[in-house]
């Protein structure tokens, strides 16, 4: 596994798109870590006199409806985005991974039950389920994460299941079984490593989706509490006052687009590197 990773990283760095993606992602992480240091103003400070200001040397991306500095708010927002993305993807990914492997490798009846649950969850359009759940649960970031997890884990589950199923009857697996290896050993030592490839690609592509779900929920007003500088909430403020100034929306959309671009490029690069058939045909 170690040798494999080293080669992978090396090859990734040779791909300009992957480099670009990694730059963006490290940029995101840095901004999130040092948000307070790089913000010219306190993100919550209101200057009503200066509200709706266009970009200037004082307010690099302008101000919002309460005179708060948009740049500082967006910088803070990177923390929220990163937090939601990592936590939600970790939780839903783990759940999906475990359930997917069980579904693929376990008894048929269990597979059918799990598949049925996956399919049922996928039957809900995301924002609709979000509306219903968000109304039931107390408002806040935890609720957003719960909503995202519930709407996402089935996707991981399906992919992992498909991968597990195709591996289940591979020759080396059959050989292991013939030699008497237990199911647990087979799953964790042989299936898991081979499933991780598509899994990580999915995770990389799912991260921007998760961030977008939070943005969408906050945009509709059912996400973070008011005053919280999530990117979606900033877009909502901008939308409410779109006729007064376009800058809040223009600025608010930028980090979302950059970050989703970055993660998606990374996912694409990973796919290019990890899919052996593709590699050969390059």
């Amino acid at each position, binding site marked *: 596994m170690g040798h494999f990773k080293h080669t992978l990283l090396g090859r990734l760095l040779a791909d300009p*798109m992957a480099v670009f993606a990694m730059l963006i992602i490290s940029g995101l992480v840095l901004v999130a870590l040092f948000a307070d240091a790089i913000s010219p103003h306190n993100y919550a400070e209101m200057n009503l006199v200066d509200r709706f200001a266009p970009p200037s040397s004082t307010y690099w991306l302008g101000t919002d409806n309460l005179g708060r500095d948009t740049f500082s708010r967006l910088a803070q927002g990177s923390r929220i985005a990163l937090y939601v993305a990592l936590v939600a993807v970790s939780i839903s990914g783990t759940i999906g991974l475990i359930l997917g492997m069980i579904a693929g490798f376990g008894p048929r009846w269990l597979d059918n039950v799990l598949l*049925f649950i996956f*399919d*049922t969850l*996928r*039957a*809900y*359009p*995301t*924002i*609709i389920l979000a*509306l*219903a*759940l968000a*109304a*039931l649960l107390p408002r806040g970031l935890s609720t957003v994460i719960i909503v995202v997890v519930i709407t996402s884990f089935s996707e991981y589950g399906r992919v992992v299941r*498909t991968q597990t*199923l195709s591996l289940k009857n591979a020759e080396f697996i059959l050989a292991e079984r013939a030699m008497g290896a237990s199911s647990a050993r087979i799953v964790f030592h042989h299936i898991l490593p081979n499933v991780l490839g598509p899994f990580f690609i999915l995770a990389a592509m799912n991260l*921007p989706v998760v961030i*977008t779900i939070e*943005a*969408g929920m906050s*945009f*509709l007003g059912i996400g973070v509490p008011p005053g919280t500088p999530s990117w979606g909430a900033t*877009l909502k403020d901008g*939308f409410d006052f*779109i006729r007064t100034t*376009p800058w809040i*929306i223009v600025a608010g*959309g930028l980090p*979302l*687009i950059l970050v*989703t*671009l970055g993660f*998606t*490029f990374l996912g*694409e690069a990973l*796919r290019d590197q990890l*899919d052996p*058939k*593709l590699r*050969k*045909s*390059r």
Partner: protein
Amino acid sequence: MLQYTFQRVLLALAIIVVAISALFTIMITLPGDPTTVLLGPRATPELRAAFRANMGLDDPVLVQIANFWGRVLRGDLGTDYNRNRPVAEAVFSALPHTMALVFGAIFWSATLGILLGAFSADNRNSWLDRVSGILSVGFIAAPSFVVALYSLLLFSVTLRWFPTIGAGEPGDLGSRLYHLALPSFAIGLAWVGYVARIVRASMLETLGENYIRTARAFGLSRRKVIYNYALRVAILPAVQVLGVGIGGMLSSAVFAEIVFSRPGIGSLIYDSVSGRNYPVVMGSMLVAIGFFVTCALIADLVNAALDPRQRVK
């Protein structure tokens, strides 16, 4: 194939039943009494009690679910007590608008996406491929509601090329299509990227397959190989993605309908969830999920018919 179809249809029905019943249970346990919202300050306790009785809100949950399905099987989607009219009326007058929006989006994403994807695969690793690749990702990246807002501002308000509100005059196909163009484009744009990429990736994968290399070995030209074999196979995942994508498009439709002030299932659901208008929520959800599951089912069956390897048994 017939047996497969039968099984899938049964499964789809089961999914719809479970999904809707679960949602029904969630709705009922939500805090918030519809009578308060619907009747406003004028509601007397007697009036509220009468409404509660009418809506059957005092029965146990399972009874309410059973009653709901009983009515549905008889073709009755319930009564909207806010307007004293059948839910079916509100839902079925809204549904065509959303369907038009979704199919418009599919049209945009399928045509532009397949073209872009095949083009990329054909010219793979050239700068053209790179640019298309970046464009594809760029389209996916922007949240659909931002795309909708920007389109509205640019194309409707500033350039005045497209109308801002509504769905057009009834009976006038031209007007309908004119009002449909921009919102469906805003929804479909994200999927152009997905489709293009899926098509490209799948074509490249197919091109590496044994049977393709055999065809090449037999002397068939590269172009022919791509467009006769690979593209056909590549359409499968495109169909799959779009079948799944309809769920995402329904979500995007909520935003598009709000931004462009269009009637439709999306805005109907959003308004009725906020207003705790249970009968309308359940009726519209049933139709929305039913529509989505049916589309996914059709995509699945088409998939299975075209490529028997996909029928996992």
